[in-house]
């Protein structure tokens, strides 16, 4: 090993361009989770963040001192402004979901998510922490370089081709490392506890009434099963923190993680935590495998084709880039697509269920496509 080889490995890992599809997919899942999270918080929004809530801003600042990125500290302490933060976050998360002004949306979303947490740290769980931390690095990622309206706009303006450009993955790599830290540090902390080593930890967790969600079958609550579950948890957390980087083992380990989190989602009431952890997994999936999986979904669903006649190459490229469901057919006899408005309308037709909208573009059988 030499300094040169270390530098080469570092550059290859952090800077060698890769497909932006996995990080774009993570962006979509991230935005969905933020939206669901704030919808769950909405009924008690003023109780948690309002000026007459359970934790007032001065008390929060007294208990957690230090300069913090918290827009509540700059806004008037009124119900109106507290509620306004909800709507601002809702809009920015929707923009992030759609990939419209992605960079700006990711910055606003991060600032608002961080502000919510800083405003009331006493309702924040580990999943929230992961949401905040990965949101920070998502601001630097090419999250709008695929699966986004930004990309369709760029194609329309002639700045990009029909395939997304490869991008340096350094921000995605930090998000992956954050996921490994989550699991490995948890494993490390647990390895210092007697109950995790002797196998009784899950026995006690299952009996914490405030965490219980759906009823567990009796045989899963026995001490023997608790030991298996305890050690399985340790093994999976260790693997997700370390071995997940080994390509041949990766998908098996992610599958084990999926099983663990689905089990926790069934048995434990920690809303959104499991989904935040699972969303991180897509950053580990190879773009080619994502494409293969999506192709399988498309073939299985076999969505009804929609035909258009693009009047220009850029219109055709926008439609091709937007054709995530594989419905697009290009035929001269189909409705003509020329202006930006007609392209936008055609894109919507590609995304909406077959029955909706103008039926002229919907083919009853897959027509042979013609090159233009």
């Amino acid at each position, binding site marked *: 090993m030499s300094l040169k080889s270390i530098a080469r490995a570092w550059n290859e890992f952090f800077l060698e361009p890769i497909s932006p599809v996995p990080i774009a997919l993570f962006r979509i899942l991230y935005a969905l989770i933020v939206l669901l999270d704030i919808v769950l918080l909405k009924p*008690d929004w003023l109780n948690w963040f309002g000026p007459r809530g359970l934790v007032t801003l001065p008390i929060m600042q007294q208990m957690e001192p230090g300069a*913090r990125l918290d827009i509540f500290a700059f806004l008037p302490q009124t119900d109106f402004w507290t509620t306004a933060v909800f709507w601002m976050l809702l809009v920015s998360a929707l923009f992030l979901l759609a990939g419209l002004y992605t960079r700006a949306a990711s910055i606003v979303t991060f600032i608002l998510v961080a502000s919510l947490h800083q405003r009331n740290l006493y309702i924040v769980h580990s999943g929230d922490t992961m949401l905040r931390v990965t949101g920070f690095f998502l601001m630097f990622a090419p999250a709008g370089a695929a*699966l986004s309206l930004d990309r369709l706009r760029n194609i329309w303006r002639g700045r990009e081709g029909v395939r997304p450009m490869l991008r340096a993955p350094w921000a995605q790599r930090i998000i992956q490392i954050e996921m490994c*830290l989550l699991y490995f540090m948890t494993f490390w902390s647990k390895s210092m506890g007697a109950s995790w080593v002797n196998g009784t930890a899950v026995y006690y967790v299952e009996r914490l009434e405030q965490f*219980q969600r759906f009823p567990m079958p009796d045989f899963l609550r026995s001490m023997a099963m608790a030991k298996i579950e305890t050690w399985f948890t340790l093994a999976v957390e260790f693997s997700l923190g370390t071995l997940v980087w080994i390509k041949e083992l990766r998908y098996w380990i992610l599958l084990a993680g999926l099983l663990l989190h689905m089990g926790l989602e069934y048995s434990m009431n920690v809303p959104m935590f499991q989904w935040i952890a699972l969303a991180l997994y897509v950053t580990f999936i190879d773009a080619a495998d994502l494409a293969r999986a999506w192709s399988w979904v498309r073939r299985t669903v076999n969505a009804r084709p929609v035909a258009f006649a693009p009047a220009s190459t850029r219109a055709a490229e926008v439609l091709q880039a937007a054709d995530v469901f594989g419905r697009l057919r290009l035929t001269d006899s189909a409705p003509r697509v020329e202006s930006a408005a007609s392209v936008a309308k055609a894109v919507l037709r590609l995304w909406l269920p077959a029955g909706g909208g103008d039926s002229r573009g919907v083919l009853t059988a897959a027509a042979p496509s013609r090159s233009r």
Partner: protein
Amino acid sequence: MRKKPLRSEEPRAEEPTPAQPGAAPLSRGARIAITVFVAFHLFAVITWAVPLDTPLIVQCREAIKGYMLWTGLFQKWDMFAPDPSKLNNYVTATVLYGDGRTTVWTFPRMETLGYVDKYFKERYRKYASDNLRLDTRAPLWPDAARYVARAAATPSDAPVEIDLVRHWSEVPPAGPHGEELPAPWTEFTFYRYSVQPGDLR
């Protein structure tokens, strides 16, 4: 304008191929800036998250504390670690009205809620069971008492005193044959607050 044949059978846009175009190569300056940024943040998050408190690590954390707190990058991964809690617990408030009548006001308890409400109200568990009941969180108590006073006030009756009460029960180890043993509940009034007229507004 470029002309090229377009066919529906072509691979879709988001399917990468080896011939996929790359963005413009990063300049040397950009590569150096990114490397410094990545190296610093890896150092910072690992130093913050590692479950060790050696003098060197404590010193390093102190050096980056301002940045970590401001950005929100502070993190600790110790769910149910090193050992899970063995306490079932909840918090109630005893509300005393002007006419001497008392009622018990309870922060939402997950074990008494339906499946949907559990999703929406879980933050109350985090707030009350993990924080409010602890002596180390005493500064939270007056806010909580005022909140309860407002919630329990009626047009005809105003609370004059709020007692915050914690209830707990320790999960016992399994019996000799693996059977679950009963666990008694204990309660303790940890805070008393005299309601001021301005608190109810």
